């Protein structure tokens, strides 16, 4: 209880401080080992195998409290508000992390995309700026961090003692209804795409109820409340690009549809088990049954989440997180679990895992429950790296496929008839001819 109060006050204090232009200060809670007798062993394991956190919303935090987000970069190695900064990451033995290059659902900053998701927003700008922020952060700390795209990159970074940094996109609203943007983001280094955040997109349906809400789901936007056919096309394109499909936040039907459509292993970068705590952000057993070893299963992984509300509002502890993990592992196998925090994207993390410096506690809890070293190495990162390699294999298998030519059927801006300039002065005469004919056709339709 006291811990919660301290964390709350420090969070409010730091927000208040930033608003009054005083230097940012944080009051991180001191590290207290969960199982002191296992602390040395836990640190040994952390030094030996990379622990890769599949979900940290660091760019969002940097952009939320800094008018000029890049000013935050030098502070990362001193102290930065939120759950993550470099000194704490080092203390916690973090080996790698996915930073999300996300943009909030447009509704969150006062934009309405309309029923067809077509109205313009600054979403793409936000995503691109977040990606650039990550790249500049990497450039600023060449000895402490290393950008990674493949499992090999991650292992390489770990062996050099540098934090392996990858990127994910949280929510396909960030694609602005285009498959071209998915190709461009993949090129820029995005390694997974979460099919929705807390809002629906033209591709997929969301479960809605994220942090800060009452937990109820949002009214459906698509028939069947799952993936749209357009979304299935996206999943295939992501398979072709070697980008992992992330199902956290998605509606149950979206998850089922995506697993059926995907030729590669899928992931949930920050979710728990609904059987342990009944919250829409957690995965129900019947969907867990679709994951695991075996010819008829998807070989993906389900990394954990550390948000009190999803884990258990009445028992928000590290032990309870492991209850989730063990329930999931009972169904999918210990080689299909992982560690995701959602740090910086949540308000209160569970007791014992208050910030990124506390990972030894998680390892101690696993040890106390009898997990073996190989199993722990697996959940820390081995399972994730295996999935990344399998996704790479699928990408190679699909390398003869052309890129997807699909265009969102509700778009009215393509072909871009109106782009010819005043009275089509930018278009050669034979092109003008075509445009005129097509316009006539379109009007007739």
């Amino acid at each position, binding site marked *: *209880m006291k811990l*919660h*109060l301290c964390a709350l*006050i420090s969070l*409010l204090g730091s*927000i208040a401080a930033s608003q009054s232009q005083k230097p940012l200060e944080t009051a991180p809670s001191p590290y207290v080992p969960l199982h002191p007798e296992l602390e040395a062993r836990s640190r040994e394991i952390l030094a030996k195998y990379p622990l890769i956190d599949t979900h940290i919303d660091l760019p969002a935090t940097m952009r*939320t*409290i800094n008018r*000029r987000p890049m000013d935050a970069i030098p502070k990362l190695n001193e102290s930065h508000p939120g759950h993550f900064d470099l000194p704490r990451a080092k203390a916690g033995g973090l080996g790698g992390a996915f930073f999300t290059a996300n943009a909030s659902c447009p509704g*969150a*900053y006062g934009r309405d995309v309309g029923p067809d998701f077509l*109205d*313009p*927003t600054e979403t*793409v*700008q936000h995503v*691109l*700026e977040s*990606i*650039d*922020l990550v790249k*500049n952060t990497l*450039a600023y700390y060449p000895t402490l961090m290393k950008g990674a795209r493949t499992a090999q990159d991650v292992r390489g970074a770990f062996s050099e003692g540098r934090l392996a940094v990858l990127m994910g996109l949280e929510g396909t609203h960030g694609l*602005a209804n*285009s498959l*071209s*943007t998915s190709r*461009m983001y993949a*090129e*820029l280094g995005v390694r997974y795409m979460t099919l929705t955040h807390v809002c629906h997109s033209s591709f997929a349906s969301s479960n809605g109820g994220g942090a*800060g809400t009452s937990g109820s789901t949002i009214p459906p936007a698509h028939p069947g409340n799952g993936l749209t056919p357009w979304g299935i096309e996206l999943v295939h394109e992501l398979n072709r690009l070697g980008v992992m499909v992330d199902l956290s936040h998605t509606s149950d039907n979206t998850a089922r549809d995506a697993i059926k459509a995907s030729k590669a292993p899928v992931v949930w970068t920050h979710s728990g088990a609904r059987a342990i705590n009944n919250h829409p952000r957690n995965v129900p057993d019947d969907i867990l049954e679709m994951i695991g070893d075996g010819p008829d299963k998807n070989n993906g992984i389900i990394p954990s989440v550390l948000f009190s509300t999803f884990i258990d509002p009445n028992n928000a502890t590290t032990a309870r997180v492991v209850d989730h993990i063990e329930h999931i592992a009972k169904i999918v196998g210990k080689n299909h679990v992982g560690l995701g925090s959602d740090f910086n994207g949540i308000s209160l993390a569970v007791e014992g895992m208050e910030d990124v410096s506390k990972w030894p506690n998680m390892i101690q809890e696993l040890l106390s429950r009898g997990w073996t070293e190989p199993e722990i190495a697996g959940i820390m990162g081995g399972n994730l790296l295996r999935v990344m390699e399998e996704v790479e294999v699928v990408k190679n298998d699909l390398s003869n496929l*052309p*890129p997807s*030519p699909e*265009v969102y*059927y509700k*778009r009215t801006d*393509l*072909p*871009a008839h109106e*782009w*010819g*300039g*005043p*009275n*089509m*002065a*930018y278009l*050669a*005469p*034979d*092109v*003008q*001819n*075509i*445009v*005129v004919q*097509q316009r006539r*056709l*379109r009007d007739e339709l």
Partner: protein
Amino acid sequence: MVRNKLTPPNRMLMQLQLRVAAELRCSMWWATDHSDFSALGPPCLSTILVPAANVGSLYGTFYKTAFQQKEVSEGALDLMSAHPLIDTHVDLPLILRASAHTDIDNRSNPVEAAEQIAGPYPGHVDVPKLRQGKLGGIFMAVRVPCRSGTDYFLPSDDVRDALEQVDQIQLIMEEKEFQYARSSEDNLKAFKAGKFATFIGVEGGHMLGNSLSILCIWAQLGVRYDTLTHTGYNAFASSAGSGDPLDPLYIDGLTKLRLIGTVMIDLSHVSDETMRQSIQISKAHALFFHSAARAWWDHPRNIPDDVLDMIRSEEGKNNGVIHCVFCDKFVGLEDPTLQKVADLIEYIAKNCGRAHVGIGSDFDGIDYSVEGLEDATKYPDLISEMMARGWTDEEIIGLMGGNLMRVLDEVDRVQQRSKDQEPSGAVYDQRTDDNLPGLARGHLEERSNNLTLDIED
């Protein structure tokens, strides 16, 4: 040189089109065009006349091509076989996006479009024409219309559409005729491999989404230049015809942006003031990728004399390059011919030096090119003409792209040297698109005002 007997109908149509131009905030240059601007007749006239004129112009092109083939000198063809001609501005992506190609739904998609330019395709440019024209390198332009006028910080799909065009260009580059290039070395490699060296340019600062970060992203996606404005305003600068100075954001970017070496700034389309400030502040090379000279033909899109004076190979002057456009409206409506383009090139070369000119047609981004340079098959004619005027091989190699490559190499060297400079963190001060969700802010404000903290546990 044989004149096209069917020219007069084309010319009349052109004049008519000028007068029927729609009034858009975007079309400032259009409104200040040299001819009388008065709206005459309903726009639908053009839908009748265009197809008719089309037939005429097609016949004319055939007639002239067939006759003129003999006139291109062997020397020109030899030179172009040994050295790449680079056209620094082609709007092929625009054409592909503006016209549908397949399927019942009449939607254009970039994947199929990329495949279709391997054969004859409407517009000034397609693979057969480029082969016949012996083109070596091409800068394809990413272009999105300016929509918002002075409200350029309202939400729009500009950045998304620009990403789609970069995707389009990359899909084109997967075709076997094209090969991506970003440096002079890449250019030569592609040329030796028998492929078109394909560079990417972005035409307009509005596609930067008012953000220097996004300029960096374009650089990472392989973009080599950005035309600071098209016909509208953006957070960085103002377009031709306006007298507006540079935004402080742009100045900050120019002086501190580490990537200024990686993405060259194209000053075509910008206002005079923007041109002057850019050259003075940045010390970077003044590059105009598709422009003409105002003393030559008085149009706001063309470069004023005092700016031309700044560019030459002298101490204290700018070592930039001016690439000549083929658009009849900028070259001179009185007599828009290949001769005039050659005259224009010589005019600029006389002022700045033959080491400071190049070729930037604006093919596929204009309706009419000049007579004699109707499409991409005609590059050899221009080279032939320059040779006939006594330009040496070395000078022509420079004109064909050597001058630009020289600048590119210098730009890359500068970028290497300033690699350790910190990138600019400047943010456009008029932005209101906070990343902090309004809901969250409201909630936090409530909580910080609340003296008694309600803690759930």
